């Protein structure tokens, strides 16, 4: 049975109302325990036997099915570490909705470290949506350290949408994508908002080994108050390939943002590009919205809302 707090968190991180959708692969983990599991038509979830975590097997050719694997940490001071492996069959086309919500009313540090590894077979397509969220009245920190590692075979495509909008005190994110096969493609949309004294580090390695493999990384972040963000987007091109990284951050108050990109071309036909911009909200944007009847605060909110959409 899930508590109300747990249900609320599920709604936020996985768009789930009261229960999980029927005939769908779902695994809900709360405070380190399996709270709910169901199997999909072509997607099976099994607990690992050697360590904490699950194996998710998606049959070849599976089309349009979804997998939900939300995690809830609501016991203050709980430290969770989990390994989830995804095996995505040839030609499958699925959406995976992961996410972690922490509700911490206590004074101890609550933490979830998830290590997700994906193996995409030929022409598999995955959209991976990961939302991170923290709340609670306690002084204990909410800490999330996700690691996401993906291996793509020929023609495989992954779209990674990660967002962390508030409430997470410390986060260290590591993402590694190896585009091993020809024509494989990785698209990453990262959204991050920090406030108060929060810190966030996002490190990323995209390795383009396959011929005509491609990547596009779009990172948008807002750092408010005293928060600190650091980005290390790195792309390596070892074949004829294309990569584009764009990082855009808005800073407010006393916040600090550092972006340390690296692009490495190890092949004459590798084309990699990087753009980064960090700055405060443009004054003219605020003025424009005020002339449309918004207050300063409303204007700022609209600008950030669009920016992090």
């Amino acid at each position, binding site marked *: 049975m899930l508590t109300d707090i747990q249900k609320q968190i599920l709604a936020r991180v996985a768009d789930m109302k009261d229960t999980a959708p029927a005939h769908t692969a779902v695994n809900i983990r709360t405070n380190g325990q399996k709270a709910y599991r169901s199997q999909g038509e072509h997607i099976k979830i099994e607990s690992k036997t050697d360590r904490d975590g699950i194996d998710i097997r998606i049959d070849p050719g599976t089309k349009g099915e979804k997998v939900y694997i939300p995690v809830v940490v609501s016991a203050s001071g709980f430290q969770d570490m989990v390994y989830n492996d995804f095996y995505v069959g040839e030609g499958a086309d699925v959406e995976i909705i992961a996410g972690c919500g922490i509700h911490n009313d206590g004074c101890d540090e609550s933490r979830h470290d998830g290590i997700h590894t994906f193996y995409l077979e030929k022409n598999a397509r995955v959209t991976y949506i990961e939302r991170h969220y923290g709340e609670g009245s306690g002084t204990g920190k909410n800490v999330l350290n996700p690691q996401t590692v993906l291996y793509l075979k020929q023609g495989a495509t992954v779209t990674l949408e990660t967002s962390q909008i508030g409430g997470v005190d410390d986060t260290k994110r590591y993402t590694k994508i190896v585009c091993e096969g020809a024509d494989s493609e990785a698209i990453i949309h990262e959204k991050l908002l920090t406030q108060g004294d929060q810190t966030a580090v996002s490190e990323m390695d995209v390795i383009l080994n396959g011929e005509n493999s491609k990547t596009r990384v779009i990172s*948008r972040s807002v750092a408010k108050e005293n928060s600190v963000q650091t980005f290390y987007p790195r792309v390596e091109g070892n074949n004829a390939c294309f990569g584009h990284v764009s990082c*855009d951050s808005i800073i407010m108050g006393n916040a600090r943002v550092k972006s340390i990109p690296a692009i490495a071309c190890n092949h004459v036909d590798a084309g990699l590009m990087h753009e980064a911009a960090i700055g405060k909200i443009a004054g003219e944007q605020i003025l424009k919205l*005020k*002339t*449309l*009847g918004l207050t300063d605060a409303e204007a700022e909110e*609209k600008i950030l809302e669009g920016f992090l959409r």
Partner: protein
Amino acid sequence: MLELKNLCVSAQSEGGKTEILKNISLQVESGKFLVVTGPNGGGKTTLARTIMGIMPAESGEIVLDGTDLTDLDITARAKAGVSYAFQQPPRFKGMKVKDLLEIAAGKALRLDESCAFLTQVGLCASDYIARDVDGSLSGGEVKRIEIATILARGSKLMIFDEPEAGIDLWSFARLTETFRQLHARGDVTIIIISHQERIIRLADEVLLIAGGQIRDRGPADKILPMILSDTVVGCNMLDQEAGRC
């Protein structure tokens, strides 16, 4: 009626204070169409930004239909019925054309409503409604979206700053028609900063501003020949006094 009384605006710069607008007094009757023209740097944009509250007035008064706007901030002036299409509208990453139109209108808009505003500025609505108002739009596109937001806002006073800039001739024809129709409605006071003969010809009155002062005002037939002759000379005779020539 919009009334400007002895409006003075100056800017602080390294060399001290520079007067940009010098003692501007002006009355525009409700429902009238005024075109403001004059050489670059004459103070037209400053005048518009001062009416909107973006630039502070050093002295003088701004009154709209009996409401003294002088001490109101931008938001309050917007709520009192002033709107202004920027000469150089800012872009917004992640904000959709539809969002901006809805902010301007102050309410959710049906698809056909937002499309109508875009059509009126010569944009094919279905191509634009879901696009971001960011660097992917051309200058002329951003300008027209800016004008559409003013139409969506529907204030009683609309000020447009060089709406023709960057716009192709086909769209320009559509735009002048929109201004004509807006004027025909009779319930909007329109001030357009423009150098275009086709817009000037629509005006009830034309105001010539140079060197921070009103140099002349009158019907299009009086002011147009002055602009045209100056263009031919390629040097602004009106500005001699300011020593710019």
